[in-house]
């Protein structure tokens, strides 16, 4: 049986920040060239379940972690920088030049499947973004395009 709520869940995730034509957009971290639409909800789709994603017996849906720390940990694994001289590395790692990444919180709603570390959701929209490896122009463009707070890390 599912629980009901009217408050969106806030999760944490990563996006690639890539040029689409001449404008910077958020792009899925794991599915290349899947761009998040500005000022419109991002809706989960699936080649098998189509618009009933996320399905319980599948891995479809929009993914997000429960905490910022888990999203940061994925970033460290992605960049290959996890520990510094045996101690936990608390700084965010540098990303490849010209390949900015956004770390941020994301509103999730609709049907949501909850696991111990995160969520698979039906609908999502960025809530707040922190751009890593990007300049002021990219941060400003994302702020204007998605109409959310954007800072540079």
């Amino acid at each position, binding site marked *: 049986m*599912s*629980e*009901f*709520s*009217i*408050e*969106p*869940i806030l999760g944490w*995730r990563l996006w690639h920040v890539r040029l689409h034509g001449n404008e910077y957009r958020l792009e899925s*971290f*794991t599915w290349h060239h899947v761009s998040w639409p500005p*000022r*419109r*909800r991002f809706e989960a789709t699936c080649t098998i379940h189509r618009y009933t994603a996320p399905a*319980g017996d599948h*891995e479809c849906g929009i*993914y*997000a*972690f429960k905490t910022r720390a888990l999203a940061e940990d*994925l970033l460290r694994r992605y960049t290959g920088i996890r520990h510094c001289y045996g101690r936990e590395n608390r700084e965010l790692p540098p990303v490849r030049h010209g390949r900015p990444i956004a770390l941020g919180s994301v*509103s*999730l*709603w*609709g*049907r*949501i*499947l*909850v*696991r*111990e*570390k*995160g*969520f*698979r959701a039906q*609908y999502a*929209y960025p*809530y707040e973004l922190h751009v890593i490896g990007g300049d002021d122009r990219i941060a400003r463009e994302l702020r204007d395009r*998605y*109409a*959310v707070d954007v800072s540079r890390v």
Partner: protein
Amino acid sequence: MDIGLPETEQEIEITPLEEPVPTPTPVEEPREEPVPA
């Protein structure tokens, strides 16, 4: 993204009163400058 094991999944349904998507800021109509008579 490793969000945990599928066996632990629980389903919730969230229907916000208003979708958390920013709406475009309404454009203010420019007021006409008062023209001195």
